[in-house]
């Protein structure tokens, strides 16, 4: 039978949500653990059934909020402190446009724990040689790939500044629950983009979600520096900030 550690590792490798509960202080046996997974039976036990049930319920709620911390429970022996550590699946960055900037951006995003999906219909750009480090490389139009894939754990980065590719992608991303949507392009390019989207009936509250011109102002010049400014803005968005 697999140990808690092996099951935890298998969940992390498969990017499945999982939470680990450990008695760290109080009346219980310090170090006792149980593993909580959505739609699966509790693995291990913290002692009393009532404690297991309460911890499992809290752990699942904390998992959905990507929150970890100590919770206090009362058992027949007294109070116990249980550390509940949640491991939500990693966020995914969808990068539309397999351009030069996308190469260092995939590197930085992976270092920061993102899954990376690079989308470009142009096979000259989206080559396996340039994007061996991406988790997924998709040769298709963004509006063919993105529908149904964007969740509140998704970050969308548009790097083509070509209306043929950007606009259809935006029309999928803006109404979606995606956590961050940013688009490359000068202020002028962006002004024209807004005009087109407005003319196509995209509502203002959706346009307000768009980070454009993409990235924080750090004087970026090279593709690598631009990738740094983009990833910095994405990190800020991940923490509910703007970085501005």
């Amino acid at each position, binding site marked *: 039978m697999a*140990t*808690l*550690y092996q099951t*935890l*590792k298998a969940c*992390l490798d498969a990017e499945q949500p999982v939470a680990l509960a*450990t008695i*760290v*202080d109080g009346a219980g046996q*310090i*170090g006792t*653990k149980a593993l909580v997974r959505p739609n699966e039976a509790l693995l*291990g036990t913290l002692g009393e059934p009532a404690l297991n049930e309460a911890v499992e319920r809290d752990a699942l709620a904390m998992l959905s909020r990507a929150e*970890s*911390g*100590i919770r206090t429970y009362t058992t027949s022996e007294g109070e116990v402190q249980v*550390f509940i*550590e949640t*491991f939500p699946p990693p966020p995914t960055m969808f990068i539309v446009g397999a351009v030069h900037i996308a190469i260092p951006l995939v590197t930085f995003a992976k270092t920061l*724990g993102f899954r990376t999906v690079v989308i470009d219909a142009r096979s000259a750009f989206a080559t396996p040689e340039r994007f061996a480090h991406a988790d997924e490389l998709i040769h298709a139009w963004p509006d063919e790939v993105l529908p149904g894939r964007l969740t509140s754990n998704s970050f969308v980065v548009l790097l083509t500044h070509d209306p043929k590719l950007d606009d259809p992608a935006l029309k999928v991303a803006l109404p979606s629950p995606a956590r961050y949507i940013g688009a490359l392009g000068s202020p002028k390019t962006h002004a024209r983009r807004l005009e087109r989207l407005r003319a196509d009936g995209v509502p203002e509250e959706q346009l307000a979600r768009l980070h454009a011109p993409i990235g924080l102002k750090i004087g970026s010049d090279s593709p690598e520096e631009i990738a740094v400014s983009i990833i910095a803005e994405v990190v800020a968005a991940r923490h509910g900030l703007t970085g501005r």
Partner: protein
Amino acid sequence: MKDVLPAIEQWRARGERVAIATVVKTLGSAPRGVGAKMAVSSSGAMVGSVSGGCIEGAVFDACQEAIKTGKAQLLHFGVADDEAWDVGLACGGIIDVFVEPLEW
């Protein structure tokens, strides 16, 4: 956790024993958040971090002890602490670190 797993896997494949230290609580300004991890092998290799380098020395020793004794313990680091484990945090924050042998 993911950042320390590859090293843990290597150590275990070599037959080494392992202890894991996890930040379980922070108060005030702390260099690393809840869930930050450091792992130590029985031969003294180390991966990950639980602070900005302020308490890693003490946590390393506690990990070695956990490997020897098989016992888990909760360590408390902070400015207001008089215990032997008090090595102090320059940032003035308080960190609780849970140290345990990987026997689960």
